[in-house]
């Protein structure tokens, strides 16, 4: 039951990722390419990626993380035009708004549920695993912090509310001697990062599904999940309202599965452990 819930959660997160990515591609690069092409291409590539198993994924991600450094460099390059004044006044509209925003941004940190699932399959001491989780999250935090800082100091307070993708919008105006329009390159590299993220969720949903139904192998489970995600994506489409609904749904599920269930499971597992010991 619980794993069915998790599978559903992972599927909906995956769908959200695909929708947001397709929307971004369609807005910025390929406005006329149909949704099913961008979505199915991404799903296919990710399916190919996960078909190699966890080990291959791990190796791949390590290699591809170099790309994040490139993104980092590009963002830092654009920091030369920043204007600290735009940050002030801080806390103008009170803490309520801040917490509202935190709620939205929390989605990015729900990723740690991934480590809870994946680490059952990874060799290593608990301490090492904890360390890795900690490092990963501090890196994510740092990355987001820099992105937010740069985009809020580059754009004025009024303008930032008008620009939904500040980093891309910012890079649009930069021109290097060899290439202009850095945003196109940024978005291309960003696609790779989307692929790794979606690949992870696809893998986990497939993993869960293959546990649930005994006849499914991991491959068929992956195919089934991929088809479901594609169908959901096509159903939602570029409809802003439906996307927002899905976003809210995923956020709530995220709270339930990433915060709620682990918190419930923690005392439960203690109790079980003790009982197990008594039994012996």
């Amino acid at each position, binding site marked *: 039951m619980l794993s069915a819930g998790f599978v559903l959660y992972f599927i909906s997160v995956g769908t959200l990722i695909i929708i947001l990515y397709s929307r971004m*591609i369609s807005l910025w*690069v*390929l406005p006329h*390419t149909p949704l099913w*092409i*961008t979505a199915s*291409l*991404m799903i296919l*590539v990710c399916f*190919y*990626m996960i078909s*190699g198993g966890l080990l*291959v994924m*791990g*190796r*791949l991600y*390590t*290699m*591809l993380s170099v790309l994040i450094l490139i993104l980092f460099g590009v963002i830092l390059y654009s920091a030369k035009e920043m204007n600290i004044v735009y940050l002030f006044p801080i806390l103008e509209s009170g803490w309520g708004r801040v917490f509202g925003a935190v709620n939205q941004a929390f989605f990015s940190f729900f990723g740690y549920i991934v480590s809870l699932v994946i680490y059952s399959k990874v060799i290593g001491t608990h301490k090492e695993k904890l360390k890795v989780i900690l490092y990963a999250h501090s890196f994510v935090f740092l990355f987001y912090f820099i992105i937010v800082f740069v985009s809020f100091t580059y754009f004025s307070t009024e303008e930032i509310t008008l620009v939904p993708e500040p980093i891309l919008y910012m890079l649009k105006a930069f*021109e*290097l*001697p*060899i*290439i*202009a*329009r850095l945003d*196109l*390159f940024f*978005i*291309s*590299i960003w*696609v*790779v990062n989307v*692929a790794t993220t979606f690949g992870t969720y696809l893998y986990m949903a497939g993993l869960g599904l293959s546990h649930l139904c005994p006849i499914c192998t991991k491959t068929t489970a992956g195919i089934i999940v991929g088809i479901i995600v594609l169908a959901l994506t096509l159903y939602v489409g570029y409809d802003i309202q439906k996307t927002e609904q899905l976003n809210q749904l995923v956020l709530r599920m995220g709270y339930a599965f990433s915060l709620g269930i682990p918190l419930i499971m923690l005392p439960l597992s203690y109790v079980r452990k003790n009982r197990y010991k008594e039994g012996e």
Partner: protein
Amino acid sequence: MLMGFFKRLFFGDHTRLQDRDLAHDHNHGRKQLSSKKLSENVDYLLSNFHKSNDLKIRVLNEGNAALLYFESLSDQEKVFEKIFAPVENGQIDEISKLRSARITQNLEEVITNLLGGQAAYIEDGSNKVHLFDVTSCYNRTPEEPQNERVIRGAHDGFIENIMININLIRKRIENRNLTVKYIKLGTYTNTNVAIIYMDGIADPSLVQEVERRVSSIETDMVHSPGLIEEYIEDQTNTPFPQMLHTERPDRVVGNLMEGRVAIMAEGTPTTLIAPSTFFMFYQASDDYNMRWFTGTFIRLVRLFSFVIAVGLPAFYIAIVGFHFEVIPDELIIPVKASINEIAYPPIIEALVMVVIIELIREAGVRLPAPIGQTIGIVGGLVIGDAVVRAGLVSNLMVIVVALTAIASFVVPSNELSTALRLLTFPLIVLAGTMGFVGIVFGMLIIIIHLTKLQSFGVPYLAPVAPLNFGDLKDTFVRLPMFMMKTRPKDSHAIKPDALNPVRKWKLSDQQGSKPNQQPDGAEASSKKQSDR
């Protein structure tokens, strides 16, 4: 085996030592005992060779004895020198008493040996067959291979004779741990295949795996290393070669010392090396003969050529077909001028030009050198120029395609270079469909594929995926030799240290009167610091 010898010595296990011969190993107990009648023996042999005309039978002793050999395989001089000369000189009375002969009673063995170029002497009234080695060899000299030339360094190369090839290796590694294992492959061709490795460095399980795969080949013939490669490689459905081909002894030796296994076959100079990783294909012997600065630079250029060879045409098509905004202001009008009046869409242009380049290359390869050059000039200069003048292809596209072709030839390995040129096509198509996004997906698929590949259990993209910082020293860069203290992990060598401090002299120079008092480890670290 040595142990066995002592055992025999001390414990009096006096089974007689046998000649070690591949023929024995291979005949698998198939046995046909010789009879005492000369004619029966000769008839048996003749019928087994289907009365082949080049089997020469010389009747001796007024019909009481016969000498058989293949005149196509044996050296007439040697026959005279080894068999007749001693008798004529009066050193010995009869041929049968020559001590250089090997004696057997198994006619099947005689057949194999005759095929190996030996001569068989059979006497009437005796079931013993005397075998003499009179093989003739026609070998070319071990010249530098045409496809793997170096500027500095060893200029010899393997030839078609496996014995000479192994000789070239043994001359370089005078060590008892260099182990050669023969396996005969091909039920008809009986090709001699050698598996060579350094015992004590190479991972025994790797050696075992190679042996298992090689010996499991059951085929009629093995005539090229490409066949063996395809029989034993992990994944055949991939454009990427998973075994390194080389004709250079120094390269083989280097790889053996890293703990890899070399596979050689009779009749071909090409040696296979397993396991191989992607980055090995980008290393050339030249790198190690240069200063490490230049070596690193050249290697970076080579790796960069990978990106150009695979991605440049696709990148160009994506730009002129989708994202011309990325062309900087100064360049935009010249680019526009050059492609403005071309009739075909850029993707057709690119495909046509890439195919033309392949045509020129293929035409040039097979033709004799002088004509090959002409083809190159006609193809490259004349067609290239005319095509641009006629307005079929833009001159930018010619530049792009020519650069791509050059970049793909930079790769030291021919197999990989072909693979790269093949990969250009799908990327061109993807770029023509979705621009940059298509290229990213194409590259992603290639990278995923490379990560998934394995060569004898070793990840193909090692040491980048899985990442191993230590081994990057000989991947993107070539660090100075004294820093290459350990063997690369991807070869699974069981003896990781490759060298002790090689620049010890510097240390003793600095310490002056105090010669090496430090333990080895401390010495190594302090030396490292002083060298920085």
